[in-house]
C-alpha cells in the first residue's frame, strides 16, 4: 500500500502501548481513591488517638461516587448531535465531499455511520462526540476542509472515528465526573471547616471532631482533585496517541495524519468557539493553557514522531 514499510504494522504496537498505559493510569486512579479514604482515617486516628469504625472514609467514597454518578448522568443525556449543534455545527448532505470521506472511514473502522457536521470556523480542527457509536457525531471545521488535502482530512476524520471506536468520550466523561466528585469533597471540607471555626463554643467535643473530619475531607479532597485531574489528563493524552494509531490503521497512510498535524502546528488561526473549551478534550488538537501536567493533548511534535514510528521500538513485523 502507500505507507512506508517501516511504519506499516507498527500501529498495532502503538495501540497496544497506549492501551497498556491507559490501564496503568486507571489503576493509579483507583489506588488514589482508595488511598485517600485510608488517609482520612489515618488523620482522624492520629488526631484522636483511637481507632473507630471508618465512617469518615466510607463517607468520602459515598460522596465522591454519588456526585460523580450524578455528574455522569447529566453529561450522558443528549447524543453527539446535540453537542455538535450546540457548537454551531451544520449537518452536511449525503454525497458531499466530507460525508463521503466519513463514509469510507466508518467502513474502515467497522463503525456505524455517525452524524456529520461542519463548523463554520477557519481554524483547522475537528471533534467526535457521543456516548455510543450509534449516537455519535463527528464535526470538522470549514478551515479543515479548505486547508487540508484529501489525504490529510481523511487522517483527521479517521482520528476522530478512532475516538468513537475506542469509547474515549465515555472514558473521559467518567474520569471528569470522578474529578468533579473529588472537588465536591474538597468543597464540603472547606465549608464545614469554616462553619466549625465560626461556631466555636457550645458542645465543644462534637464540634471539634466535626472540624477534624472536615479538615481531613479538605486535605483528601484537595489531593485527589489535583492528582485526579493530572491522571485524567494523562489518560486523555494516551487516548490521543491511541486515536492517532487507530487513524493509521484505518487509512494505512501515516503521512496523511502526520501532515495534517504539521499544518496545524504552522497554522496561526485560533477561532474555535470559546464555550467549546469544555469539550477541549475531544478536539483534534488543543493547546493547553495549564502547562504540561494538565494538557489534554500531547505536543504535536511528539504525536507526529509516534505516528511516524520514530519513538517506538522496532515495529513488530509479523503483525503487518
Amino acid at each position, binding site marked *: 500500500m502507500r505507507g512506508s514499510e517501516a511504519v506499516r504494522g507498527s500501529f498495532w504496537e502503538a495501540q497496544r502501548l497506549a492501551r497498556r498505559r491507559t490501564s496503568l493510569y486507571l489503576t493509579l486512579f483507583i489506588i488514589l481513591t482508595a488511598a485517600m479514604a485510608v488517609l482520612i482515617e489515618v488523620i482522624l486516628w492520629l488526631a484522636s488517638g483511637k481507632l473507630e469504625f471508618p465512617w469518615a472514609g466510607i463517607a468520602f467514597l459515598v460522596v465522591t461516587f454519588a456526585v460523580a454518578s450524578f455528574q455522569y448522568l447529566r453529561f450522558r443525556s443528549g447524543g453527539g448531535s446535540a453537542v455538535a449543534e450546540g457548537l454551531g455545527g451544520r449537518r452536511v448532505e449525503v454525497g458531499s465531499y466530507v460525508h*463521503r470521506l466519513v*463514509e*469510507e*472511514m466508518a*467502513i*474502515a*473502522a*467497522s463503525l456505524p455511520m455517525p452524524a456529520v457536521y461542519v463548523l463554520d470556523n477557519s481554524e483547522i480542527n475537528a471533534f467526535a462526540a457521543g456516548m455510543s457509536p450509534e449516537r455519535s457525531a463527528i464535526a470538522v471545521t470549514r478551515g479543515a476542509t479548505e486547508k487540508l488535502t484529501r489525504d490529510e482530512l481523511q487522517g483527521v476524520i479517521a482520528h476522530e472515528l478512532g475516538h468513537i471506536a475506542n469509547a474515549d468520550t465515555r472514558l473521559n466523561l467518567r474520569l471528569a465526573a470522578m474529578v468533579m466528585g473529588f472537588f465536591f469533597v474538597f468543597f464540603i471540607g472547606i465549608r464545614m471547616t469554616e462553619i466549625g471555626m465560626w461556631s466555636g463554643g457550645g458542645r465543644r467535643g462534637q464540634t471539634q471532631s466535626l472540624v477534624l473530619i472536615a479538615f481531613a475531607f479538605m486535605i483528601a479532597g484537595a489531593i485527589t482533585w489535583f492528582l485526579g485531574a493530572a491522571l485524567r489528563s494523562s489518560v486523555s493524552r494516551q487516548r490521543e496517541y491511541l486515536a492517532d494509531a487507530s487513524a493509521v*490503521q*484505518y487509512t*494505512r497512510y501515516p503521512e496523511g495524519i502526520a501532515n495534517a498535524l504539521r499544518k496545524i502546528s504552522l497554522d496561526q488561526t485560533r477561532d474555535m468557539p470559546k464555550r467549546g473549551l469544555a469539550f477541549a478534550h475531544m478536539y483534534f488538537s488543543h493547546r493547553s493553557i495549564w502547562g504540561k501536567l494538565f494538557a489534554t493533548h500531547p505536543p504535536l511534535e511528539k504525536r507526529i514522531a509516534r505516528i511516524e514510528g520514530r519513538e517506538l521500538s522496532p515495529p513488530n513485523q509479523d*503483525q503487518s
Partner: protein
Amino acid sequence: MVTTIVVIVIVVVLLALWLMSAYNRLVRLKNQVHNAWAQIDVQLQRRYDLIPNLIECVKEYMQYEKGTLEAVVEARSEAMKAREKVEDGANLGDLMQAEVKLKGALGNIFALAENYPDLKASDNMRNLQEELTSTENKVAFSRQAYNDNVLLYNTEQQQFPTMLVAGMYGHKPADLYEVDEEKVRKAVKVEF
C-alpha cells in the same frame, strides 16, 4: 479440610470466570469478523448493481466493442456466483480471483471510454464513474477492515491460554481476503 474445600471452590470459580470471558471474547471477535464480511458484501452488491447501468450507458456508443462489454457482464456473473459460495471467512479464493477479473474488465471499459468524447462528456457517465470510484474505495476499505478483524480474531485464537479452549468452542481461523496487489494495480491504473 475446610481450607482445602475453600481453595478448590476458589480455583473452580476462577476457572469458570476465565472460561466465560474467553468464550465471550471469541464470540465478540467472531461477530466482528461476520459484520465486517457483511460490509464487504454490501459494497460488492452495490458494485454489481451499478454495472448494468454502466453497460446500458455505454452500449449505444461502443457498438464495436461488444467483446469488452460481454467480458464485463461475464465477469460480473462469475463474481456473483463466487460470492454465493462464501461463508464467513471461508471459500474466499474464487471470489478474490473473480473480483480481480471484474476489476480488470471494468478498467478496460473506462480506458475505451476515453476514445468517445461524447460518452465521456455525458452526465450519466460522469455520475456512474464517480459512483463506481467511490464504491471501489469502499470495497477496498471494507476489505481492509475485514482483514483487521480477522487478524484480531485469529491472533486471539492462537494466543495462550485462549488457544486451549478456542477449538473446543468451535472457533477456527478465518481466511484473510487478500488481493493480488500487482494485478489489481494494473487494473486500477487504466481505470480512472
